[in-house]
């Protein structure tokens, strides 16, 4: 029961709000990256080359149009004419022998790289340019050769260096944007993990406190000035204050128990004396009455004693006296102690005890199992079975005490460990409602856990103790 709740509390961070926010953020960034990638793709080389190729084809058409309109002009004249209109297009003329004859650009000695559509890329320097167009170093030109009907070739070239550089810059920008997005996703992930981790710690601690009622627990928080750490610290301060207040309330009740015990004992002793005198006088009726009062006083004293014992155990001082405790001899003694009680009530005790050792205080552990057996014998009706099992589960020693009583309703399962809590079904039975509180206090001191399951019929207590070899 307890385990399931704890798992629910330790929710994976994927369920947390901060993670969902981060996921949304990531999705949004992803879409943006996609859109950006589409636009960057528009600047890719082949699209650029396609556009240049179309321009060069258009330039060739212009060349042919010019020649049709002015059939008498020579090729150099046409080139000069075109050059005045096309400032960024360079025309060159090669004669039949493949020699540069005329034009704004000479392909001679230029390194060329073939490209699609008969296009080539040329590494052009200012030396090969015969116009006022000047630049430093080598520029990449896209160019195409067109064969003339009368022989020779026309070279049409366009400077694409700036376009390529621009495209390159766009690509770098895109890459940078993508890197930034990846970084943003990473940071978002880190933040969501951090936030979810901290909120999980907070809820886990809160849950544990709810479950165990142990106000000494704190939210683990590192040094840091962020608002969540501040919140955790504030919650811790609040827990400290609550613990102090609960402690002082408990202190008051323990003090009351302590301070009332002495006069009450004196009262009981006086009653004893009175009883003696009544017996000496031969008034047995009055003596019986006084004895019943003494029993009442003993019951109250017992309750105070139990309260103080719980308080002492909870103060945790006894831990230093822990020793190795063999479970089998201890549980055999328990069996031996309760066997006559069970027999008197017509109950059977079935036991399956394997011997493992734990670390603890034998007297206190004996008290725990005595209390559980007390309950088991008290609540199981005639003919029922009580089970006492000691076994190994993983690296824990597990002791089970099962009865066939009326069982504990689910709503009562947590409350039974509270001081003075008595479930509806047990109100008419003897007891002070402190037995299981004492059990829990001892378990806490032993860092052991205790849980309850239905035994169908009845109740089964499970106690998980530390195993030592």
């Amino acid at each position, binding site marked *: 029961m307890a385990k399931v709740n704890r798992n629910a509390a330790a929710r994976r961070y994927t369920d947390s709000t901060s993670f969902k926010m981060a996921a949304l953020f990531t999705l949004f960034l992803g879409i943006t990256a996609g859109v950006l990638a589409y636009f960057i793709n528009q600047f890719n080389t082949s699209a650029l080359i396609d556009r240049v190729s179309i321009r060069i084809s258009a330039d060739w058409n212009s060349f042919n149009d010019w020649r049709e309109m002015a059939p008498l002009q020579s090729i150099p004249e046409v080139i000069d004419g075109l050059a005045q209109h096309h400032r960024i297009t360079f025309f060159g003329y090669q004669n039949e022998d493949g020699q540069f004859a005329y034009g704004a650009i000479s392909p001679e000695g230029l390194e060329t790289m073939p490209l699609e559509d008969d296009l080539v890329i040329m590494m052009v320097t200012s030396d090969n340019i015969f116009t006022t167009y000047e630049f430093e170093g080598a520029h990449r030109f896209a160019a195409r050769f067109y064969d003339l009907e009368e022989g020779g070739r026309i070279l049409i070239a366009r400077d694409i260096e700036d376009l390529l550089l621009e495209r390159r810059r766009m690509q770098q920008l895109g890459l940078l944007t993508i890197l930034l997005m990846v970084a943003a996703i990473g940071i978002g992930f880190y933040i969501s993990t951090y936030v979810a981790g901290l909120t999980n710690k907070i809820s886990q601690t809160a849950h544990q406190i709810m479950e165990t009622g142990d106000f000494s627990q704190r939210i683990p928080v590192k040094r840091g000035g962020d608002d969540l750490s501040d919140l955790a610290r504030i919650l811790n301060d609040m827990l400290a204050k609550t613990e102090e207040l609960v402690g002082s309330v408990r202190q008051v009740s323990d003090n009351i128990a302590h301070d009332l015990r*002495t006069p009450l004992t004196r009262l009981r002793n006086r009653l004893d004396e009175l009883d003696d005198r009544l017996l000496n006088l031969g008034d047995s009726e009055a003596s019986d009455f006084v004895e019943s009062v003494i029993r009442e006083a003993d019951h109250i004293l017992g309750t105070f004693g139990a309260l103080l014992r719980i308080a*002492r155990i909870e103060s945790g001082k006894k831990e230093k006296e822990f020793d190795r405790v063999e479970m089998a001899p201890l549980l055999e003694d328990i069996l031996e102690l309760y066997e*006559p*009680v069970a027999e008197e009530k017509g109950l059977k005790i079935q036991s399956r005890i394997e011997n493992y050792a734990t670390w603890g205080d034998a007297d*206190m552990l004996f*008290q725990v199992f005595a*209390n559980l057996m007390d309950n088991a014998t008290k609540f199981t009706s005639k003919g029922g079975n009580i089970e006492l099992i000691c076994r190994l589960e993983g690296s824990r020693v597990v002791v089970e005490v099962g009865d066939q009583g009326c069982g504990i309703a689910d709503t009562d399962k947590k409350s039974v460990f509270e001081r003075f809590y008595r479930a509806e079904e047990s109100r008419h039975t003897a007891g002070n409602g402190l037995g299981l509180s004492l059990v829990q206090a001892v378990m806490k001191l032993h860092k052991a856990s205790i849980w309850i399951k239905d035994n169908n019929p009845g109740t089964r207590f499970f106690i998980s103790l530390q195993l030592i070899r």
Partner: protein
Amino acid sequence: MRALLIEDDSTVCSYITKGLKEQGYFVDMANDGQEGLNKATSEAYDVMVIDRMLPNLDGLSILKSVRAAGNNTPVIVLSALGEVDDRVKGLKAGGDDYLVKPFAFSELIARIEAVVRRTEFSTEIVTELSVGDLYMDLLSRKVTRTGQKIDLQSREFKLLEYLVRNQGQVVTRTMLLENVWNYHFDPQTNVIDVHISRLRSKIDKDFDPPLIRTVRGAGYIIEA
């Protein structure tokens, strides 16, 4: 019988004194530690009751000095501290028994009687015990009454042995738990009574007179 009571709380003191006097003790009192030590070392007593918390000198120091001087008078240590290690400290310092305040007066008397009796007989090694017509052989672990053999389980035997060793005196339930079961714990129900009634059904049921008697509000007593 002479008893020394070293206790600074005058209410407790007068109360114990009164009770012990009724039991036939001559009671000497000391209200502070130093005075207590002087009396304990200068005079002979049959039993001493020493409180742990005292002005000037604490109870355990007195006890240690008394024991260091070779004095073996039975001592019961009283204390408001009830933890196991306090109990162990008290017994280690030389105490014969340890009683946590507040206590029922009958509990103190029962324990005083038990430690006095224990020291009286501690010198001889006993192999046989008897009360009335009941005999216990501690070696062969046999029990007979009017010559008839009685079968007892080992815990019943221990229980009977403890009762018989303290015969004629009240034995409280806590004393039984501590000495027969060797656990310091607080049973919430009448487990001890059930064990006693079982023992009774074996040794008293078919015989007359009954040996085990319940002492109301205190415990049990076995006597012929």
